[in-house]
């Protein structure tokens, strides 16, 4: 018998449930209770593309040290789904715990000798207390939360407070939930001792907030001044448009007239969504759509128009597992190349690569300034992991003196004064021309927008030299973009080194945890977190000053690495791909084991690609 696991504020509990059983709110209450005790958590909702009946999991990493990535491994399994019992039991770490509903006896073959089995007769307790089927189902979830609280040392008053907040004003419901909570707790207190895994009150959360990236990005779009949102439902982006809608209803309705300072249209498809965004952007409103990879595929023709006709647009791509329909409810960073070069012909589009909900908020707001400044489509690349999971993040901040940057817009008065207007004329040498809003002046500033080649004064031309001048100017504009997009973030190793890692997006938290582990192992790696495309000069410097760089990302084909090679001359022999793409969020354990074995086996520069799925 393996010794039972013992840990304080450092363990992983995984809930295995049936989709649609009402477990989600009970599980997130469990997580929030730990947070309210001042102990950070990292949660991952692993759900099917289904409304009812298929398996769903919810992973709670209790992490006193504040590691927000997924750890990997399960210390305690709350096995509430008979369909997935065998694999759930198999996943438990040796010495870990299996919590299950012991109402119906299970044969010994269904357990493992090296784990600790905690049987609580949830159904029996429930059936004794409730007669209505739906009540039995919902309260069973609360009963197990009560039982787990007693087993893991979670303060019952904290959960009671959360229930009171959730059902504020509905006293009967609060009372009923309290009762269920205590049923589970009391049964454990009467029959069992607390486990080796314990939550202990701490002060490690601070004033941080707990929010999904999609919700943060929706709020960021409000602060970015977006007025038009056209979208089409697609997992995992839907909740971004829905968050924008509800924040607009809260923050953007004129108190006097009751009228909306926004327009949101659920379009007939992704093509119409981006069409509306481009129409609104052309007409001087800040507009966006939220979608995922399949939607971006549909939008590519319009994205090319936005690039070539130079019309501001913002696209939030909440990436999921691809290609095709792929894994709709799993996470990946596999749309990078598709977004960077979306559409036919020579095109390139700026991308912002947020790491967490905090950056989802700030980058969302910034994307609208960039789109106006650069007069083109700007992508904000979220993914399912950060988009649809609540993450602990610093509270949102806003500088009240900040104003929208509408970019180069020629006004009525400037036109009236006789200022020369050429829609595609590079007057400042930065590749960015002036535009006018439609209807600005009776006789000046009007022009014809088209996706065909045209001269600097917007007149149709298929002349070779005119075309070349124009597309070269677009390259100058892309060069200019480098100084506007968020710079990468450098985390130097504790001692000088010629080895490094490059990473981005939701890999961040797992990478930061891994960097701490590398330091403890005595491995020195400089780390560069890329936050935008095109890559700025800091990226060139990093490439030049390291002999071997591990490029860590969550896709099969090393897409960021490809971009580094294609756009910044990165040496393929020195850029070593570390790839995790099974649809689950990357873990520090995976990063450490992948990079360590390569560092042990080979000397830089290494060129052997590591094409290996996760875990």
């Amino acid at each position, binding site marked *: 018998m393996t010794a039972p696991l013992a840990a304080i504020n450092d363990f992983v509990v995984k809930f295995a449930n049936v989709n649609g059983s009402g477990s989600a709110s009970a599980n997130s209450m469990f997580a929030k209770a730990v*947070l309210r005790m001042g102990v950070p958590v990292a949660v991952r909702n692993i759900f099917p593309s289904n409304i009812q009946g298929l398996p769903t999991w919810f992973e709670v990493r209790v992490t006193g040290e504040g590691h927000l990535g997924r750890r990997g491994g399960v210390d305690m399994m709350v096995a509430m789904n008979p369909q997935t019992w065998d694999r759930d039991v198999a996943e438990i770490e040796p010495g870990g715990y299996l919590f299950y509903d012991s109402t119906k006896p299970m044969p010994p073959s269904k357990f493992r000798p090296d784990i600790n089995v905690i049987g609580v007769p949830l159904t029996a307790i429930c059936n004794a207390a409730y007669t209505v089927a739906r009540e039995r189902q919902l309260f069973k979830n609360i009963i197990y939360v009560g039982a787990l609280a007693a087993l893991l040392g979670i303060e019952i008053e904290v959960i009671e407070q959360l229930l009171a907040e959730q059902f504020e004003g509905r006293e009967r419901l609060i009372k009923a939930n309290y009762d269920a909570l205590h049923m589970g707790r009391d049964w454990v207190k009467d029959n069992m001792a607390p486990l080796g895994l314990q939550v202990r009150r701490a002060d490690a959360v601070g*004033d*941080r*907030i*707990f929010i999904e990236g999609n919700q943060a990005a929706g*709020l960021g779009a*409000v*602060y970015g*001044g977006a*007025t*038009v949102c*056209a979208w089409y439902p697609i997992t995992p982006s839907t909740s971004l448009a829905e968050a924008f809608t509800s924040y607009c209803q809260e*923050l953007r309705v*004129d108190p006097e*007239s*009751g*009228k*909306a*300072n*926004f*327009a*949101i*249209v659920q*379009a*007939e*498809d992704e*093509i*119409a*969504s981006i*069409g*509306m*965004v*481009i*129409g*609104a*952007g*052309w*007409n001087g*409103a800040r*507009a966006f759509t939220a979608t995922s990879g399949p939607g971006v595929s549909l939008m590519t023709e*319009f994205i090319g128009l936005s690039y070539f006709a130079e019309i501001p647009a913002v696209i939030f791509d909440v990436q999921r597992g691809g290609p095709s329909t792929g894994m709709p409810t799993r996470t990946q960073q596999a749309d990078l190349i598709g977004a960077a070069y979306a559409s036919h012909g020579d095109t390139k589009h700026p991308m912002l690569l947020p790491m967490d909900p905090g950056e989802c908020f700030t980058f969302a707001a910034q994307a609208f300034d960039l789109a106006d400044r650069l007069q083109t489509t700007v992508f904000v690349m979220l993914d399912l992991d950060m988009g649809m999971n609540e993450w602990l993040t610093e509270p*949102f*901040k*806003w*500088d*009240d003196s900040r104003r929208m940057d509408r970019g180069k817009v020629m006004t009525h008065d400037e036109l009236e004064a006789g200022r020369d207007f050429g829609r595609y004329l590079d007057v400042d040498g930065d590749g960015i021309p002036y535009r006018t*809003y*439609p*209807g600005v*002046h*009776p006789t000046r500033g*009007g*022009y*014809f*927008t088209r996706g*065909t080649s045209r*001269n600097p004064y917007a*007149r*149709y*031309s298929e002349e070779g030299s005119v075309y070349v001048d124009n597309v070269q100017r677009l390259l100058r504009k892309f060069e200019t973009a480098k100084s506007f997009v968020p710079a990468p973030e450098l985390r130097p190793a504790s001692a000088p080194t010629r080895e490094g890692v490059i990473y981005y997006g939701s890999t961040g938290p797992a990478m930061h945890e891994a960097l701490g582990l590398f330091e403890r192992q005595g491995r020195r790696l400089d780390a560069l977190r890329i936050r935008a495309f095109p890559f700025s000069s800091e990226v060139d410097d990093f490439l030049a000053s390291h002999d071997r760089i591990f490029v860590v990302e969550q896709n099969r084909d090393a897409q960021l690495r490809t971009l580094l090679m294609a756009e910044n001359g990165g040496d393929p022999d020195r850029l070593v791909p570390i790839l995790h793409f099974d649809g689950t969020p990357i873990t520090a354990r995976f990063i450490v084991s992948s990079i360590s074995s390569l560092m042990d086996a080979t000397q830089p520069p290494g060129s052997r690609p590591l094409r290996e799925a996760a875990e």
Partner: protein
Amino acid sequence: MTYIAKPKLHHPALTPNALGYLRRDYEGSVSTLCAGCGHDSISAAIIQAAYELDLPPHRVAKLSGIGCSSKTPDYFLGNSHGFNTVHGRMPSVLTGANLANHELIYLGVSGDGDSASIGLGQFAHAIRRGVNMTYIVENNGVYGLTKGQFSATSDRGSKSKKGVVNHDAAIDMVSLALQLGATFVARSFSGDKAQLVPLIKAAIRHPGPAFIDTLSPCVQFNNHAGSSKSYDYVREHNEAVNRLDVIADRKPIEVDYEPGTTISVTQHDGSVLSLHKLAEHYDATDRIAAMAYLAERQAEGEIVTGLLYVNPDPGDLHGALGTTGRPLNSLSDAELVPGQAALDRINAGLR
């Protein structure tokens, strides 16, 4: 050769409209379409309508898709912003533009290839959403730019220039528009300016989704015997149900018809549509009856033209969304960005 601007030759007898603009001020670049193309007549009708309505020439946004018809916005209203979008997707771009600034007049110009095939979905959804626009389809039943393939509005049994007989059923955009909830539906003929100009004027003054299907023969590829979209065929089978006069701002009615044959419809903005009935019993405010009449006459091989349906008091998308009375593209930081105080409240709710 659309970069060639028209010479600014002013005839001394030209008269300015109420805003002081000449008809010339509503023109655009020189057309690059074939001599005799129906589309050029429609452009001329749009110019005439805008001039007669005293529109500020820069307050129109003209949008189109791809194809011969979609090139035409370059050939009229040269002081307006125009947008030649992508194939079949003009309706969504127009919808977005309209959301950004409801104060401009939105003119969507498209063809049967652009709107009845690749763009049928966007056409349908822009109509059913109630976007305030004038949507003109220049319908010639053929793909002109790619030299003579059938379009989705070609009638079954009609013959191409090469002698191929079309075996697919035709899409009737007027019936579709009626079914989808357009609140102004008309059909006209590029060769009948007297009918077309008032229809365009009325559509522009209509505060909702207005659709005009305009038969516009293609002189190069669809003007032969055996075609049901040729000048000769349309003239022979044209059955106008009414004659329309648009009386903007309550000017006196100038046309005098027999008593009892004229009805007046007052639109939301005060403009009066004076409809002279040509078909007995035809009621242009009865949508269901209009649909039935169209189906009946179509079965007889007739092409019904005129103002087929109007709802004088329609809603539009902005009304449905409850948007502010000011253009969204003009709202300031103070109106759009809630600031740190609101963020503090939001932060507090997320712990």
